[in-house]
């Protein structure tokens, strides 16, 4: 009986021992999580001054130094990694523009970016002491203006808008005794209209395209005076005898009108002519159609002469003439280039048909530069 108890006890111990052994793991693996963290405060953008310097980004990692990387995408910014940190170094910025870069710190799929910037030298670009807002005013005639441009950056672009055709760049010369100033001259064409006109001029540098300076050229319009016309200065090759005497053109009454011949035919285009008392070198003409429809000029040849015999074309207008009742038209300034005393208004076509054909007109005026 005792033997049996001992035997059962030994068997029980054996089973317990086996049970304990069987609970042990088949294998043991050390799972060490590798991680790399750049704290938020180190991810803030880094800004270097003009002189450059160093900045440090902390790195919390249990990865061996050789197994993670830090790099910069710009030549001017170098990056060194050490245990627990990345050192960013920048030299001085010799340009006149700020520059940026991005530092990448990565281990496997964990990637962190740090934006880095560095200020550049301060550019100076002034036109007559100002960057913007300066206005240069000139008269209507041809003119040359100059401005003094002070700049510590290369001045390689002077921009005039495409829509401006009256301003031309003249010369760019150094100012004696000053290394950073230049005198820039511009030629301004004569303004042949009554209206003032304007042009912005912008200075730009390839050292920093964003740092511009500009000024405005304001050119006055031409001032014109009406030429006093009298009846004896007017004549025509086709006066209609039944209505519309030519003197009505200058009576100041838009209700009256001049009418060319409709009751007879002359076989050539109808015209009227103005003989001036004093020679002029250019003019603007203005007219108003009669207050009824029909017979409005739509194709007009303007001829001039110094002696009333030798004529030359001043302009031929084939578009833009009004055809409405009592409508008005004012020409652009017509420069002749030489003095003339005779002005001929020939109608090649009216709203009613092609010459020889009668036309009508209520009022007519001429203006010459003062």
């Amino acid at each position, binding site marked *: 009986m005792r033997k049996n108890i001992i035997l059962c006890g030994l068997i029980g111990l054996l089973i317990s021992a086996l049970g304990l052994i069987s609970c042990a793991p088949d294998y043991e693996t050390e799972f060490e999580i590798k991680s790399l963290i750049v704290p938020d405060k180190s991810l803030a953008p880094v800004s270097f001054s003009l002189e450059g310097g160093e900045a440090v980004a902390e790195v919390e990692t249990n990865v061996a130094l050789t197994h993670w990387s830090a790099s910069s995408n710009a030549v*001017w910014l170098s990056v060194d990694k050490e245990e627990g940190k990345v050192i960013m170094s920048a030299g001085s910025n010799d340009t006149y523009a700020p*520059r940026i870069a*991005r530092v990448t710190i990565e281990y496997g799929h964990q990637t962190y970016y740090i934006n880095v910037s560095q200020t550049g030298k301060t550019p100076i670009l002034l036109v007559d002491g100002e960057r913007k807002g300066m206005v240069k005013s000139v008269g209507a005639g041809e003119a040359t203006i100059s401005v003094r441009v002070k700049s510590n950056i290369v001045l390689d672009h002077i921009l005039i808008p*495409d*829509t401006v055709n009256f301003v031309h760049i003249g010369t760019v010369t150094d100012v004696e005794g000053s290394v950073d100033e230049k005198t820039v001259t511009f030629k301004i064409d004569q303004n042949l209209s009554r209206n003032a006109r304007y042009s912005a001029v912008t200075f730009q540098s*390839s050292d920093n395209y*964003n740092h511009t300076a500009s000024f405005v050229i304001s050119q006055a319009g031409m001032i014109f005076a009406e030429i006093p016309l009298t009846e004896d200065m007017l004549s025509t090759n086709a006066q209609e005898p039944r209505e519309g005497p030519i003197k009505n053109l200058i009576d100041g009454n838009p209700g009256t009108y001049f009418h060319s011949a409709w009751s007879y035919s002359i076989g050539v285009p109808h015209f009227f002519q103005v003989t001036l008392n004093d020679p002029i070198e250019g003019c603007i003409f203005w007219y108003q159609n009669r207050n009824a429809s029909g017979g409005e000029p739509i194709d007009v040849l303007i001829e001039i002469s110094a002696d009333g015999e030798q004529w030359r074309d001043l302009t031929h207008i084939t578009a833009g003439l009004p055809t409405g009742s009592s409508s008005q038209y004012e020409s652009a300034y017509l420069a002749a280039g030489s003095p003339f005393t005779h002005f001929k208004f020939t109608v090649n076509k009216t709203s009613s048909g092609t010459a020889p054909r009668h036309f009508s007109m209520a009022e007519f005026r001429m203006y010459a530069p003062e």
Partner: protein
Amino acid sequence: MKHSIKRACYIMMGVAMIACNSYDFEQEQYKNEVYLLSNSNLIYDRQVAELKQEGDTIYLMAGLSGTLNADKPFKVALIEADSLFKAYNKSNYDIETDRYARLLPGECYTVPSLEGQILVGETQVKFPVYLHNLDKLSPDSIYFLNYKIDSSRTDAFNPKKDEVLLRIFKENDYSTTQRNVYYNYTSSYVTLLDKDNPLVRRPTNANQVFPLGSNSVRMLAGDEEFGEYKTALDRIIEKSIIVTMGEQTSKNPLARHLTIEPYRTIDVVQLTPFEIYDNTFLINVISTPDGRSTYYKEFRLHYKYRLNGSDPYKEVKAILRMEYSPRVELL
């Protein structure tokens, strides 16, 4: 009775032995035959050549069919052909000969060898095709190389897959001819430089960009359109500009300087940088506060152009943008 049972057992054993006679299973297996890799139209169009100064290499593939690997090497020899090329043009374009595909000019490729061998245990052999001078190819034309198996110098081959049209695609960092690549106008202006009619337009459409050289692309100027692409050749010639990317800028390493030139007849003048329209190609990374980033390729352009010498210029201030995934491009 016992004898009868024994006899029946012997007969059954005999039948069983006969039933185990060997059967020629090989007659049910696919044969080993050489074929040229292609799609159902006999065109192989899965490779794109990168536009690099030193050229790029694509491959013509000959494979070996069969259920089992061959126990002997298979010789493969190719010869140039044109029958499939002609059939392609006839069936696709018929009398529209100006739209015909073209054979790749000889100056644009080199094939070092047209003979190869599929070794024992392998199922294919590659014939390298060295491509160069691809910048001379029009991005609007289709280019092929046409090869067929030389029956006299090739072991058993599949006569239904003995010829292939190798489609030549080209690509650079900005576009590809394999598919249509569009950049969208964003924050853009097209201004008519006519003081009597200063019309300003804000284009929001897409502009198709075609690769030309390793660093150059072609696109339409401003808000011009070429209409239906099939008939657009004249309009493309008239209205297109070339944008060529250059060096990295000193301000931003993700930006590159660019130059703008006429493609053919257009009068185009590159203007000086103006604000964000600074004549650069920019990889624009827009990051959100939660750390996610969106990547765009952007042309930032400032130029003026006109189609006729007597017309006023149109000034273009444009950002042309295409979203992309840097990870996908690395695949």
